[in-house]
């Protein structure tokens, strides 16, 4: 940015500006368009062409290995079947619960770490690198490791004994802390009855809506991997805020805490919005981590739409149902991402 401004001022200062090239503009624009065309066509086919095909399958009778491309009547029957499935209803519930925990933990921890590291610290760079490290690993590696950490017979449950938490609980007469983690089918805060009061159709729901406790360890593992990314984005954002802003707030008598609470965090709102959009879209698509860490879980307690679509597509070969699920995922992601993309386009 500064270089281009520098060059510009130099150019304005010189009285003799170089003559503009005489080649016609139209042909240059056309040439640029033609050079970009292969990429546009590739994206057109691989993204929009294939999506259109999937939409068509989601409306078709193709439900076995035998290809049947006739349209199913009524038109949205596959979608009706999909939303009537207990497993899909559980998946939607799990996605909401996962999103809340995952976004809450990642944004909170990431911002917290960024603030804690926002000062001259011994080994500050080392800490920052350690916190971001999980982001360089694959979801599969992450899932494999956390699967053992949250194994009810190992991992953190043994740590509770080693760290003296369980002996302490026993001393005050409380049973040991031995959660089943991802193997626990319990649903907390069941809301079906309450939901039925405001939305009568909720009475027809096939699954208990609430918080499946098995989803919490999955959200912790995902946050382990992505909170470092949140931290890095916030640190990047803080670096763009001039020191004078903090100075001014301090001169006005703000404490360190108030400088963050009242000045820096509000100024970081654009970063927060970007992060919220990116994390939300990640959580709508989450697949590899859950697939390797817990799979579908007890009673589909950790199943997610991406796993449902994958299994319906490549194991059960229910192609029309799988496509309907995939298109629903696409719509959900589109609702989050498209406004974000168009607004950054308008900003230029």
């Amino acid at each position, binding site marked *: 940015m500064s270089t281009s401004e520098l060059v510009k001022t130099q150019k304005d200062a010189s009285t003799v500006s170089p003559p503009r090239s005489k080649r016609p503009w139209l042909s240059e624009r056309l040439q640029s368009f033609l050079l970009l065309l292969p990429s546009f066509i590739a994206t057109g086919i691989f993204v929009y062409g294939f999506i259109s095909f999937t939409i068509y399958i989601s409306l078709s009778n193709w439900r076995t290995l035998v290809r049947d491309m006739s349209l199913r009547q009524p038109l949205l029957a596959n979608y009706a079947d999909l939303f009537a499935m207990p497993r899909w209803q559980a998946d939607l519930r799990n996605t909401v619960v996962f999103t809340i925990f995952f976004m809450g933990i990642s944004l909170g921890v990431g911002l917290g770490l960024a603030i804690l590291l926002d000062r001259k610290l011994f080994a500050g760079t080392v800490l920052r690198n350690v916190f971001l490290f999980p982001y360089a690993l694959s979801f599969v590696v992450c899932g494999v490791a956390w699967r053992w950490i949250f194994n009810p*017979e190992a991992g953190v449950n043994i740590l509770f004994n080693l760290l003296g938490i369980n002996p302490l609980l026993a001393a005050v007469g409380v049973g040991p802390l031995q959660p089943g983690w991802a193997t626990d089918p319990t649903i907390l805060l069941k809301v079906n009855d309450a939901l039925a009061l405001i939305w009568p159709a909720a009475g027809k729901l096939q699954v208990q809506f609430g918080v499946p406790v098995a989803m919490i360890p999955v959200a912790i593992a995902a946050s382990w991997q992505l909170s470092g990314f949140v931290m*890095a984005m916030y640190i990047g954002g803080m670096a763009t805020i001039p020191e004078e802003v903090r100075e001014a707030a301090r001169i006005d008598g703000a404490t360190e805490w108030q400088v963050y609470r009242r000045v820096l965090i509000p100024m970081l709102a654009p970063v927060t919005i970007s992060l919220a959009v990116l994390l939300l879209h990640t959580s709508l698509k989450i697949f590899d981590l859950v697939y390797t860490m817990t799979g579908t879980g007890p009673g589909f307690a950790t199943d997610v739409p991406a796993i449902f679509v994958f299994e319906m597509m490549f194991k059960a070969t229910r*192609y029309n149902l799988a496509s309907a699920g995939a298109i629903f995922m696409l719509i959900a992601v589109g609702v989050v991402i498209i406004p974000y*993309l168009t607004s950054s386009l308008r900003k230029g």
Partner: protein
Amino acid sequence: MVARQNTIPRKPVASRIGHILLWLVLILAFLFYLMPIYVMVVNGFKEAANVSLSTMWSFPDNIQSGGFAEAARKLWPNMQNSLIMVIPATIISSFLGALNGYLLSKWKFPGADVLFTIMLFGFFIPYQAVLLPLVRFLQTIHLYGTIPGLILCHVVYGLPITTLMFRNYFAGVPTELIEAAGVDGAGMLTIFWKVMLPLSVPAFIVVGIFQFTNIWNDFLFGVTVVPNPASQPVTIALNNLSGSFSVDWNVVMAGAVIAALPTALVYIFLGRYFVRGLLAGSVKG
């Protein structure tokens, strides 16, 4: 900075408590972030006879090859698959992204931004929405089940993000450089080749690392486009290893370390560029 130092003598006790709390939180976070890595490494080094869930947190009795020998033997063919996939896919998608980014930032035609935004959406879609037609398409062109098929997927679906990163990079390169070259009679592609490419080495490092990490860590394309276990990338092989009941637990942990090693090494040695890629790849808000 000066003001912050001045606040210290004002409230010495409070700030000392604050300092202790700060470090307490940071040390706990440090341990939490390293915990899964500790579990993988420590148990990977245990021998099959010594590995048990109850001793998960303890050091191995003696450092030997542990599960690494068997994990390496099992995963090596898949590591090779991943390598011959990730290297061409990274190079091709970076190079095409550079050309696209150059054209979209320096030779804009009417509607270029809109077309680019439509293209960029392709980076965010859940790939489940394209998998069935993609598999059929690859079968038709006889690339289904092959590494070149996977490379094609990673190049095409990687184009939006590499184009975005180079577009932002070239936007910061002065247009006067192009005008000067244009005066000398150089064409659009000559300018790209002779002027812009030599300037964009830093961008290539950032985009290359970003793509290398993304493609190496991919699971969905690998598992759907390549059904034959012998031809699959290492992420899928690791998942198979982890789900297999006949494989000892120490081997799985060692396998996770091995599968993570390439991106981990890139992060450790080129972390600076990795962070830059994150900030550049996240679409400015």
